[in-house]
């Protein structure tokens, strides 16, 4: 029973008592925990509720989702989806037939989502980094600023986004009032929630909502940098800009690797922001993939094609994440050695 676990490096690390964690003579004198406690059924008992729920909310739905993507699942079969006809890969060929309307719309929506994610994650990361580094040292008002910066993170998504929707109203919104009435930059009051400008509105709202999370993670990351590094650097005559460039930014790299991946996944999958901003169907220029799939499934009642699109999206995210993890872990090894 123990034979399988010893080869696993991760398991070794977490239970390797005395080897990796041997911190002092005092600890060694404690008797070892009897193996029956470690090896008994207790861990399984502790995991049982979580495993059952994971099955119910993740594993089974995913299997059903994949099965549904091979069936012609329309609204007639909702109450008895087992009876929906099996059509093999037809849903997939509909989804990726980029010359036909459905496939073309999906491809467009994919590109829109990529552009949206790139700018949204980029600015969120940039703002978060700037704020975390500039707030690293204490000065008067630091606590207040820190609280202010966390407000978008704490505000419920719909309350925040609905306020932005109000600000982007054509006739009574703040944005047009400033741009048109006060600054005179635009000739006409522009539309922000329909048409080509929608993507800008969406990115702005998404950055506003998302950057405090980057700020929070990076603030936590900054606390792990040993003060002694800065003290040594300043004794050697390094100014504050040099300290930021040579100590702070490189030290944040492990945090950034996790942060960028998490931001990417959340932004790419974001449904809440476009849904509250635009409603059930987004304008073409801001037609994010999650809204697009929602629309295909719950508005036009084509669940089979919707499922196929979900599976394709999942495959894409898996590939991107795997490549990213491979690249960053290789980079990290190189940096450590």
């Amino acid at each position: 029973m123990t034979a399988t676990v010893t080869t696993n490096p991760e398991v070794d690390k977490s239970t390797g008592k005395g080897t990796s964690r041997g911190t002092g003579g005092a600890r060694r004198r404690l008797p070892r925990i009897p193996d029956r406690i470690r090896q008994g059924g207790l861990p399984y008992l502790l995991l049982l509720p979580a495993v059952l729920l994971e099955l119910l909310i993740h594993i089974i739905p995913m299997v059903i989702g994949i099965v549904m993507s091979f069936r012609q699942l329309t609204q007639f079969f909702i109450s008895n989806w087992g009876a929906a006809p099996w059509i093999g890969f037809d849903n997939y060929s509909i989804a990726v037939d980029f010359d036909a309307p459905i496939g073309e719309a999906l491809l467009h929506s994919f590109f829109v989502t990529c552009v949206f994610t790139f700018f949204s994650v980029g600015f969120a990361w940039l703002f978060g980094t700037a704020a975390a580094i500039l707030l690293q040292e204490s000065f008067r008002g630091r606590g207040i600023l820190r609280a202010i910066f966390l407000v978008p993170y704490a505000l419920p998504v719909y309350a925040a986004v609905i306020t932005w929707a109000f600000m982007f109203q054509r006739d009574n919104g703040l944005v047009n009032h400033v741009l048109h009435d006060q600054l005179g930059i635009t000739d006409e009051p522009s539309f922000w929630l329909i048409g080509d400008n929608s993507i800008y509105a969406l990115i702005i709202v998404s950055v506003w909502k998302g950057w405090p999370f980057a700020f929070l993670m990076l603030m936590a990351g900054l606390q792990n940098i040993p003060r002694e590094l800065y003290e040594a650097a300043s004794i050697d005559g390094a100014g504050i800009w040099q300290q930021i460039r040579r100590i702070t930014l490189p030290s944040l790299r492990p945090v950034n690797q996790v942060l960028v991946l998490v931001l990417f996944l959340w932004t790419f999958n974001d449904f809440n922001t476009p849904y509250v901003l635009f409603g059930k169907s987004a304008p073409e220029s801001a037609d994010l993939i999650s809204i697009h799939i929602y629309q295909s499934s719950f508005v036009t009642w084509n669940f089979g094609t919707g499922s196929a699109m979900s599976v394709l999206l999942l495959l894409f995210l898996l590939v991107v994440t795997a490549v990213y993890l491979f690249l960053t872990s290789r980079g990290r090894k190189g940096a450590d050695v």
Partner: protein
Amino acid sequence: MSSLTRPTRTARSRDRSPMAAPQSFLWTRRIVLTLLAGFVLLPVYVMVSSSLKPLQDVSGKFQWIPSTLTIQPYFDIWETVPLAKYFVNSLIVAGSATVLSVTLAVFSAYAVSRYRFRGKRVFTVTVLSTQMFPGILFLLPLFLIFVNIGNSTGVALYGSRGGLILTYLTFSLPFSIWMLIGYFDSIPRDLDEAALVDGCGPVRALFQVVVPAAVPGIVAVSVYSFMTAWGEVLFASVMTNDATRTLSVGLQGYATQNDVYWNQVMAASLVVSVPIVAGFLLLQRYLVAGLTAGAVK
């Protein structure tokens, strides 16, 4: 060296370096932080000021300074839309999802962090990977499962609060498990091993030693779960009906066919935001502490 610097550091943490920060840094800090604060506070100002305007003022051109102040919207919001009911629904759903996911996460994170057993790696990898899946992927199958369970057994999961709570576990449970494994790993094993040697059972060791030591992590996870559930829109818009509607969907009720009661929308947004923002700002120190040990390593 560290014993020499420690007293000065606690006395004045500002003295990081013997050299004062140059003007270029101070000005960058002032300008960037002011711009960011302005960006963050702009919608907050719009929300507060518009919630105090009469309807004709929010329907016309935007005014930076309200010409008429009224608190009438704060009374009307409860009439236009059954806001109190939505509030209670949100509280029940977000609260239950939080309690459920954090409790289960404590047990499983303890098992993963302290024991070795067959299938551990499968479990952690599964939990980790489900975090990246889009909610839309689970929405449709869960919807179908709920509808079918309802049809075959008569248990109405679709439209019920219980069903919505279950769907909220799709995002709060994996995140809680992931964070708490990291946090429990950062608590010295000697602590609970000493308790075990003293004759505590493993479950008592968990509750008397590990859980108290992990309070910041547990608070961080709870805050995160609650806030995400409180703001969730996707599942709430599909899985609820008139009786179980949560705030995230209910707020759309202020838009009628003829008019959007923007002043009431803003007042209601403020009312549902204030408790959660206040609670979050009180607990934010725990969040950074929890992130530092749990996620950022």
